[in-house]
């Protein structure tokens, strides 16, 4: 096994792998030190965390330039061995896999993490357990990097769980608040639900292929031959014979892995934890929603892309499209500055997952990258705004107003101009306006979706067009809610605090430089130029080039077979789709913004910026409550169980008891009847009959005495009857 898994490595590759490991452990070391000794260090050790992450970032950059478009490094080490009794020994390997995708993720994760930590220095200043916060961030970054670097599913799963755990720590960081504790718990539990599926997917794959190694798995799967309903795989390592696997099981394995993504990337129907996760500190939201936790699901899909059959991909596409639409719809009705962004994240993740499902693998990853920057930027902007609101609320000793409600804000364009100008590019990128990064990636996904639908519906089944329609609908909604978000916060005039100075750090600066610099960097990175020299052509983007499926999967699309090349060809032929998508998406975005402006004007005109009431009209209430999904779970999962047990008890009491009681009653009536007949007709033999009937009635009552031990006796009588049967025959 080792001979197969570890081809000859050049010293350079070995050293690259070691550098990668250093990147991995740096945040862990910093985090561990902070958790243990943070209180003793100067400034509670935030410099240590930032320095470690910064170092990790620069190492990642080095790795990026060494690996990107040049080579793929796969280094393995023996991990552990299991003896299987009398047969051979099973070895497990672990290792580092660096390819274009991995180094890209490395850079993004460490970069966003670095910016978020710098931002947090001011944002979390004076916090009790300041050092714990940075420690948790370090562990979180470590876990995410582990997911990125793992070359096998088992290790990946371990880091996957670590991410879940550290996100639990971060979301519940303010554990004095009940809501934060509940949110952390909820996120944790919903992730577990997905992870069970993930685990079963891993087990299925292991059962068939006897390896966790992603590369070996990929090669094994790529060599499979489609035989109608089955796949024939040639003999793989450690296996004597070729194996035949049914399509259904492979689909199930793929869906199992997708379950993990559903939990972590907040896909329908497990997305409800994400809005609640806003209870965590805002920089944490920024980190979780931009580059790390939720992106992990998409990353996983990309890594495991070859393992998905065509049917599995279809499910993924449907779930993704549905999530995109539902998230966007919910976002339209929210008024919490962070909740809107949270639902927007759900929606955008839906895009990415849908992109994976429709085979737009590279477009999805491009969107992952661009989304990481602009969403981080938006959250950090929101953080500045909340910080300012808190500042003012503190000055006024105002503890009743909701400082996160956008209806309480307004006019920040003048008060916090720098923030406003940093906010605009990011928001525009999210909406998908041309010249901004979001346009590129969203356009790519939309084109892919359209192309997929077109290709699939060649047999006349137009239902496939539902997916692109969902996607385009989401574009419109995105424009609408982002416009609202922007207008409410930055336009008009401040609703709550009339003195703008109170919202600023001091007369000259609107906020501390450490808050503004990360935001500024991210805002600049939301421009399209960084991703493609031609801001209207995503195909030329260097990211797209680097992560295209031909490169990542080595021309082996895996179980989905010829789907990807076929779609590519189809898109090539129907070249109008690309152009139409671009125009349509811009149009929809603009219309969305216009509608948002109308809605804002209407609200201002109605003076209806009341912060107390929740929306009352039917649909917006539905959207505000997130389609009552939480209530749905309460009703569908929890209550039915309660009702089921209640029903069982009622069944026992009302049906079984009742029927036996009735039986007994009938017996008594019968006995009485016979008694009457006996008394009025003949005695003698009839008396005997009466006795018999009486005894039968008594037996019926006796068996039905409600004592569990008697029931036990009667059930044992059944066993005795069985003995008698055996004795008799």
């Amino acid at each position: 096994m080792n001979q197969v898994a570890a081809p000859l490595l050049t010293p350079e590759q070995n050293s690259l792998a070691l550098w990668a490991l250093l990147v991995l452990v740096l945040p862990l070391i910093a985090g561990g030190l902070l958790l243990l000794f943070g209180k003793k260090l100067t400034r509670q050790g935030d410099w240590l965390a930032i320095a470690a992450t910064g170092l990790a970032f620069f190492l990642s950059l080095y790795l990026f330039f060494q690996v990107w478009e040049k080579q793929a490094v796969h280094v393995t080490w023996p991990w552990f061995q299991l003896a299987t009794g009398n047969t051979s020994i099973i070895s497990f390997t672990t290792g580092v896999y660096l390819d274009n995708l991995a180094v890209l993720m490395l850079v993004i994760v460490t970069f966003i993490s670095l910016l978020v930590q710098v931002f947090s220095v001011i944002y979390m200043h004076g916090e009790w357990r300041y050092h714990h916060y940075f420690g948790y961030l370090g562990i979180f970054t470590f876990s995410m990097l582990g997911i990125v670097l793992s070359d096998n599913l088992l290790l990946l799963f371990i880091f996957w769980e670590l991410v879940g755990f550290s996100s639990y720590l971060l979301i519940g960081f303010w554990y004095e608040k009940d809501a934060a504790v509940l949110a952390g718990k909820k996120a944790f539990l919903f992730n577990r639900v997905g992870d069970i599926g993930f685990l079963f997917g891993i087990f299925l794959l292991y059962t068939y292929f006897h390896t966790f190694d992603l590369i070996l798995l990929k090669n094994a799967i790529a060599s499979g031959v489609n035989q109608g309903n089955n796949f024939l795989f040639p003999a793989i390592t450690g296996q004597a014979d070729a194996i035949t696997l049914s399509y259904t099981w492979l689909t199930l394995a793929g869906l199992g892995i997708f379950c993990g993504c559903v939990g972590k990337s907040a896909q329908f129907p497990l997305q409800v934890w994400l809005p609640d996760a806003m209870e965590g500190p805002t920089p944490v939201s920024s980190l979780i929603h931009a580059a790390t936790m939720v992106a992990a699901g998409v990353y996983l899909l990309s890594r495991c892309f070859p393992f998905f059959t065509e049917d599995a991909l279809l499910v993924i596409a449907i779930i993704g499209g549905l999530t995109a639409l539902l998230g966007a719809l919910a976002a339209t009705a929210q008024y919490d500055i962070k909740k809107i962004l949270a639902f927007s994240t759900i929606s955008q993740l839906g895009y990415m997952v849908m992109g994976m499902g429709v085979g737009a693998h590279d477009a999805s990853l491009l969107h992952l990258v661009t989304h990481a920057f602009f969403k981080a930027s938006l959250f950090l902007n929101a953080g500045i705004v909340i910080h300012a609101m808190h500042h003012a609320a503190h000055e006024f000793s105002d503890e009743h107003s909701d400082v996160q409600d956008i209806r309480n804000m307004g006019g920040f364009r003048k008060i916090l101009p720098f923030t406003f100008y940093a906010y605009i590019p990011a928001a525009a990128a999210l909406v998908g306006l041309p010249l901004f990064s979001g346009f590129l990636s969203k356009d790519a996904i939309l084109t892919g979706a359209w192309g997929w639908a077109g290709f699939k519906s060649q047999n006349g089944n137009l239902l496939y067009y539902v997916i692109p329609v969902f996607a385009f609908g989401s574009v419109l909604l995105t424009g609408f809610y982002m416009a609202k978000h922007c207008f409410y916060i930055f336009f008009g005039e401040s609703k709550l605090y009339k003195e703008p100075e109170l919202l600023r750090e001091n007369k000259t600066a609107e906020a501390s430089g450490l808050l503004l610099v990360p935001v500024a960097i991210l805002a600049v990175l939301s421009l399209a130029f960084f991703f493609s020299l031609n801001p209207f052509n995503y195909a030329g983007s260097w990211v797209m080039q680097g992560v295209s499926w031909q490169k990542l999967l080595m021309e082996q699309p895996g179980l989905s077979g010829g789907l990807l090349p076929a779609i590519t060809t189809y898109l090539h032929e129907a070249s109008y789709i690309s152009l139409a998508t671009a125009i349509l998406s811009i149009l929809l975005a603009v219309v969305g913004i216009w509608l948002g402006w109308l809605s804002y004007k209407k609200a201002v005109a109605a003076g209806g910026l009341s912060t107390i009431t929740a929306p009352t009209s039917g649909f917006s209430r539905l959207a505000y409550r997130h389609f009552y999904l939480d209530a749905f779970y309460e009703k569908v999962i929890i209550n039915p169980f309660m009702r089921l047990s209640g029903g069982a008890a009622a069944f026992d009491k009302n049906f079984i008891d009742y029927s036996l009681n009735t039986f007994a009653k009938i017996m008594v009536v019968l006995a009485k009847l016979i008694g009457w007949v006996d008394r009025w007709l003949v005695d003698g033999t009839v008396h005997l009959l009466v006795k018999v009937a009486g005894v039968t009635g008594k037996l019926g009552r006796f068996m039905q005495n409600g004592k569990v031990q008697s029931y036990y006796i009667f059930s044992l009588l059944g066993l005795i009857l069985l003995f008698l049967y055996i004795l008799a025959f």
Partner: protein
Amino acid sequence: MNNIPLIPVLLLGAVLFCLGILAVITKRHAIVVLMGIELIFNAANLNLVAFNRHQPDLMQGQVFSVFVMVIAAAESAVALAIILKVYSYFKTVNLDQIRHETDV
């Protein structure tokens, strides 16, 4: 010949099993009923180990007897928690009295 024949062990198991059943049937105290259940588990375990002694190639018998113990531990923990809850509610653990209390 340090070998115990199979039949006596199985008969011992059968006796313990029946005593366990007797305890479950005849006792009024919920905890004694629980003890009877433990006795039944043990009788089953004895059979498993005895069979394992005579067919040890895969150790199924011993492995499964360990599983039986695990289940028994889980079972008794939950059962005792329930009994204590019942006690705190009805102030008795007498099965017949509990039945009368619930039989409204």
